[in-house]
């Protein structure tokens, strides 16, 4: 057997590791560094945790964080819708491939495009309200983006509309790889459609559901800027203010990247706190299955 120096494998790994460190590690370190300085341009004096203190006592940040948490309500909704539709498509209803393409289409649209389209649809005198009025449902017409009470829910609805397609395709792909014998056995045992869904199908999809939930949680915490920026700019008032927009405003409008970085650090830590337990649960369940 060929003997190699014990460092050789590490040397092969080093270029990729160094590249990763430089492209991800360096910016991350910079964000932590900026968060402790009053940055003007790219430099400024060290101010300790002052940026964090400013952020924590800012009511706008409180609202932004609360809105991000509110958006997490979309995660179980998206998961349930995606799962249900995927299972229905898996039943091979007539034209299921066409339905799948149609349902996935929103996901491949660019977020600004989605935002602009829904901007027009959801205006007070836009297509949705005009349609409702024309069919005698005037009482359902609302100022979807102009009302502080409705705006965040409207944005959430648009996010669900776009993101659910990803879940459908993901779940459907997993369904195709499931062991059909289990389904057949359950049928022979007299299990109904819902029983098979809850006791056979969903347990088998557990891993991919967990993955989708994790991705969706990250989306709601750190990937909704595009929707909000295009559709509401955080308004009316602060009704749709979110942490990403807060970061953007400080970084690119108020020229205070130090404060923007402090929020980025907070967001990073929150995401870690939420995701690590999810992965821990995942690994524990894997260990349980293996044992």
């Amino acid at each position, binding site marked *: 057997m060929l003997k190699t120096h014990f460092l050789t494998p590490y040397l092969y790994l*080093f270029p990729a590791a160094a590249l990763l460190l430089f492209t991800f590690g360096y910016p991350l370190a910079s964000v932590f560094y900026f968060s402790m300085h009053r940055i*003007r341009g790219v430099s400024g004096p060290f101010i300790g945790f002052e940026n964090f203190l400013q952020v924590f006592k800012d*009511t706008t940040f409180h609202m932004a964080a609360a809105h991000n948490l509110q958006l997490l309500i979309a995660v179980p909704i998206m998961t349930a819708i995606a799962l249900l539709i995927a299972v229905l498509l898996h039943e091979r209803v007539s034209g299921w491939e066409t339905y799948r393409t149609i349902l996935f289409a929103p996901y491949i649209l660019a977020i600004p495009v989605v935002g602009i389209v829904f901007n027009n649809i959801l205006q007070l*005198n836009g297509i949705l309200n005009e349609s409702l009025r024309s069919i005698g449902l005037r009482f359902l017409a609302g100022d979807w983006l102009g009302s502080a009470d409705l705006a965040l829910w409207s944005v959430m609805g648009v996010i669900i509309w776009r993101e659910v397609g990803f879940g459908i395709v993901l779940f459907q792909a997993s369904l195709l790889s499931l062991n059909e014998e289990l389904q057949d056995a359950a049928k022979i045992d007299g299990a109904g459609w819902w029983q098979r869904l809850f006791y056979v199908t969903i347990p088998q999809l557990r891993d991919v559901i967990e993955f989708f939930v994790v991705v969706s949680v990250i989306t709601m915490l750190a990937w909704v800027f595009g929707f909000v920026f295009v559709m509401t700019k955080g308004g*009316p008032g602060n009704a749709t203010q979110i942490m990403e927009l807060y970061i953007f405003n400080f970084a690119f*409008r108020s020229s*205070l990247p130090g404060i923007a970085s402090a929020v980025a650090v907070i967001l990073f830590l929150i995401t870690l706190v939420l995701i690590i337990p999810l992965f821990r649960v995942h690994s524990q369940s894997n260990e349980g299955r293996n044992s």
Partner: protein
Amino acid sequence: MSESLRKITRREFLKAAGIGLAASSVAGILQACGAAPTDMPATKPPPVVPTVASTAIPPTSAPQSAKSLRWDWWGEQEAPGLETWVKKTLDLYKQKSGVDIQTTLVDSSVVVTDIQTTSASGNPPDLMYFWNGIYHMESVWMGYVEPLNGLLPDDMLKASGATVLSIFQGKQYRVGWYACSPIILYNKDMFDKAGLNADQPPKTWEEFMAACDKLKSKGFTPIIGGLKDGPWGEWYLGHSLAQNLDTPGEVLSLFNGVLDWREPKYWEQWQRLGDLWKAGFINNDFLSIDLYPGIDNFGTGKGAITEAVVSHAPKMQSMLGAEKVGAMVFPYGGKGKMAGKPMVDTQGIGIASGSKSKEAAAELLKFMGTSEVMTSLFNEVKVFPTYTTWDGDKEIQDPTSKYIWQNWVKNPAGIPYISNLMPTLFWTDAMFVNSQNIISGKFTGEQAGQNAYDVTQKWVQQNPDLAEKYKAWTKEMNV
């Protein structure tokens, strides 16, 4: 291939590549760490480190030696057609001077910070488009903008229409380019039909409310606009707050917390906005549409009065008919010395401190300020050039356009657009929030004043360095 190269095995090549990459990565990281920021005062210009490139540049007395310049600009967004005109004009300049100008049309969200980030990274454009007031003065205080005194003749600086908001401690940092003064446009036809005198628009707030009432009673939407994206509220604040102010210095004192937003005279403009809304004088989808669609709705005859900037007037004339569009000053509604006067504002161009070709950049500015170039700007883009040396009275034929030019561009009695002194944090957290919350019914005028006060205190805490600059600027602006 040489013998020595042929002998290198795949394994050896990978090892060498690994070592090379590692060395370059470590060098990059060390360089980044070594470049750790110092406690440099915000106003101190970043140190200029002589490089091969900079030392190779010939003396400043030979400006034409620059072969190319970079110019980051904005404006197509508010003056459609400007991009085509810029390209054409710069092609002409290249033919005349041999200097190639590379342009970048920047996004609205980075007009303020573009000069800061590019300068900080050591690669600023030579010329930069600047909004007026604090939107470029902040970069001046960081040392990223070159004073134009000495680079351009004094009479040119004075005539360029940059306004007093481009001057700090006697130095001017922009030249004007085209006018963007906020203005109130109205539909003369609707005024006639409502029994109003279209040639004598309302001058006081009471007259204005009465006119809105008459328009509404005839089935017209008196005021049309869009507040969803925010700038409508900025224009409104500029117009309405000025009614109770004596000098631009007073608004600087408000923005840096020396004066108190909780005094009724400083928040009553938001109360008045609420009054307009509650009376049903504003379009019902005001919060649901953006600024420009709102202005376009005026052009399609959906409302009688709108807020705009002077560069919108020609488009509105082409949509409604030239004779149907009137221009009026925001109604007189306060006791300040600035009340009832038209506001004058301009977009402008400056030179980056980090430019290696400042004189060549100044030459381009001189070219842009010639009468021929300004006339072509007016004729082709329909925006008003800002130079007082340009003979608008001769070049402008349309009476409404001439009236606008005389009152909102070339008017020595015009007042500066005070919203240009608003810190960006105030824009996002107070102006934007207050105007929308007033319409939503979530704020009263007094609550809006309290929020403005809170945001101002927050800004002072977050920006102690800028607050000091504001104080220094206030002394100049109180004149």
